[in-house]
């Protein structure tokens, strides 16, 4: 068991930090620390330009094979990159869905044609992706998706019809990956397909949804006979569930350490305020601030365990608890921020509904326990997969 990074890794860290401090300046100074969760709607033009700056420096997709423009970076190097990126105040990555979800999915399940068609756009920071899973009738029960994909013999293309919802950044994306039903006779995880669909076409309509923060980063997406090339289905018709589930396992948490650096800056801000406004002397708040600190360090060592685990891609116990762990921690941090601010937590910076960072944290962290599998679904997964308890029965409605 070895807690520290090697000298070679530390050398790599210095290289990353140098590049970031040279490049995250000038025109990009304004976007430092911006565009994170809850703040994803800001500075989109600048953040897209930043994505290309990163790509030119060779800092997108570093974990990918060299053949596809990556650096074949080790897990340690990926961790270090994410840590330094967050430490430098690197803005929320508009390309993250493509880099962390689409890319690895194509590398694992995609055809050569698909890899050649899509990986360069992601690697070069030019093409953005969004995730088309959830539907009005299929949230936690993702396998209930009803969006249909039918092969149209005359045009030789797939036609997609249905509705997706909560699609983050759909309005900024070039492509969406869609989980859709290829076999209309099925209603479960069988008979699904995984499709790569261009957004800019008449069959796709995007309607933004306003959130409790007053901003709109997710959308409804309507598909009305939207077209998708015959060879833009990943795997075979019927493989959709396997591909979709594989995708969820890919990330293996390398970006979690970067996420934790963001959490640390939030906690640091709360500590700073507590010291300044006297909350630091309140015994109850002292307990909760200490608890937050311990919780964040727990996330860190949990991630390190997760990343040091077997390379077989199987979910270890520490990986299975991770989502529940961080989402609950972050939600509690949002409330702690309000309590440390005290009465001032209620006052806005201005009209219209100008939230400060901590107010936005407080409101948006309520989403953390919902997206990517709610806390209840996480507990079901832990109980069933890690503890071998009986599966939830399906209903008939």
């Amino acid at each position, binding site marked *: 068991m070895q807690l520290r990074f090697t000298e070679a890794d530390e050398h790599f860290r210095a290289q990353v930090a140098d590049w970031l401090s040279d490049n995250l300046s000038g025109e990009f100074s304004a976007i430092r620390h911006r565009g994170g969760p809850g703040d994803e709607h800001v500075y989109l033009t600048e953040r897209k330009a930043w994505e290309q700056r990163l790509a030119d420096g060779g800092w997108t997709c570093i974990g990918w094979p060299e053949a596809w423009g990556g650096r074949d970076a080790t897990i340690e190097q990926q961790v270090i990159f994410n840590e330094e990126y967050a430490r430098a105040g690197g803005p929320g990555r508009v390309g993250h869905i493509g880099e962390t979800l689409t890319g690895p999915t194509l590398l694992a399940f995609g055809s050569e044609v698909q890899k050649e068609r899509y990986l360069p756009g992601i690697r070069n920071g030019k093409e953005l992706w969004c995730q088309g899973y959830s539907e009005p009738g299929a949230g936690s029960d993702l396998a209930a998706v009803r969006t249909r994909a039918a092969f149209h013999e005359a045009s030789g293309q797939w036609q997609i019809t249905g509705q997706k919802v909560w699609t983050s950044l759909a309005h900024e994306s070039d492509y969406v990956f869609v989980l859709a039903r290829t076999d209309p006779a099925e209603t479960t995880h069988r008979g699904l397909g995984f499709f790569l669909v261009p957004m800019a076409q008449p069959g796709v309509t995007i309607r933004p949804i306003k959130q409790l923060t007053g901003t709109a980063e997710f959308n409804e997406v309507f598909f009305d006979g939207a077209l998708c090339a015959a060879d833009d289905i990943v795997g075979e018709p019927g493989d959709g569930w396997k591909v979709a589930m594989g995708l969820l396992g890919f990330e293996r948490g390398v970006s979690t350490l970067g996420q934790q650096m963001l959490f640390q800056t939030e906690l640091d801000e709360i500590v700073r305020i507590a010291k300044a406004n006297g909350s630091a002397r309140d015994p109850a708040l002292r307990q909760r601030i200490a608890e937050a600190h311990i919780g964040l360090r727990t996330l860190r060592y949990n991630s390190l365990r997760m990343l040091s685990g077997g390379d077989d891609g199987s979910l270890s116990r520490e990986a299975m608890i991770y989502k529940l*762990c961080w989402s609950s921690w972050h939600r509690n941090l949002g409330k702690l921020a309000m309590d440390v601010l005290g009465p001032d937590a209620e006052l806005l910076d201005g009209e219209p509904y100008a939230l400060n960072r901590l107010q936005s944290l407080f409101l948006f962290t309520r989403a953390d326990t919902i997206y990517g599998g709610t806390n209840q679904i996480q507990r079901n997964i832990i*109980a069933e997969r890690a503890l071998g308890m009986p599966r939830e029965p399906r209903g008939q409605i």
Partner: protein
Amino acid sequence: MKFSFTDEQLMLRESAEGFLSEYATSAAVRQAMASPSGTDEALWQRLAGEMYWPAIVVPEDCGGLGLGMVEAIIVLEQLGRRLAPAPLLACTQSVLALRTVAENPGARALLSQLAQGQIISLAHTAARPHWGLEGMAVSAVQQGQHWRLAGEARFVPAGDNAGTLLVAARIGSGCGLFKLSPGESGLTVTKSPTLDQTRPMATLQLSGVEISEADCLSECWSSQLDTVLNLTRVLVGAEQVGCAQASLDQSVAYVGERVQFGRTIASYQAIKHKAADMMLKVESARSLLCYAACVGDEWLQGSASAQELTEAAAMLASSAGDAAFFCAGTGIQLHGGVGITEEYDIQLFFKRARAMESYLGRPDEHREVIAGLLLDKVDSDAA
């Protein structure tokens, strides 16, 4: 960075699991609880003579295995899982205490005795209510070639089974460390009946115990005491993680068999979600345990600061203390009525969890230590 056990460490864990599942059964635990010493002597002989566990953190040049805190927590977690009635925690604590004075020939002799399975306990506090120097109620005064020790020490782990006692005693505003034989005149050692019957404790009364100068191992031991207590918290954390894990495992096994309303109670989501919460706490505490053990090893190798060790120990003690109590308490609830019986083991884990939670500080006291580090420090950037 490789934050996982090496193959050797995994083998150690496997052999500990195998050995204890054979010898530290529930029946053996209950038999030891009912015995006068509260210890399973045969188990201790085997564990020392065949497994060499008391020698784990003893340096090689004192006849030990020269391993570290990571190996110690691997084994102690397994002891915690079984409530094994053997004083490995007490003896490992004594090893760590003696390592702080390892240049002393008397200490080196004791280290080799510990490696061979002699029971040696550390007595350092009356814990009214503090566990550190503030709670120390034995004083030492030098008189010519002798030291005179007087006062009281409580919560001495395995104290009435110890062949030698290490006693920390006040000297002025600091403290020293002394070696005593339990037969010393003026010293009485009494077993203290405890709520958790699997972990015997003793009380020492010292009225003018006179010992020779050679038996003073250190006259200036207060910062070492802090260190030893922090390292001990790491060991305690291992037992707590084991206790929490066992509470979870036994509860999951029970709810998988118990049928109500025509289905196993394990199929109810309210039960599944409690079990998931238990696992979350166990694994969270385990992550901090691994971290704290690594920091402990770095400390022993001279590369961690005292503050890092204090922080690591406090974080672990807060998390593992809560985890063990939550898991054992929830475990009783998931067992229903049988959880309240003497017959089922979950009650034993509940008592152990309670005992360990307050030993060397409650979780909220540990959080206050963290709060102090975070909130009371003068900002260096402000200065």
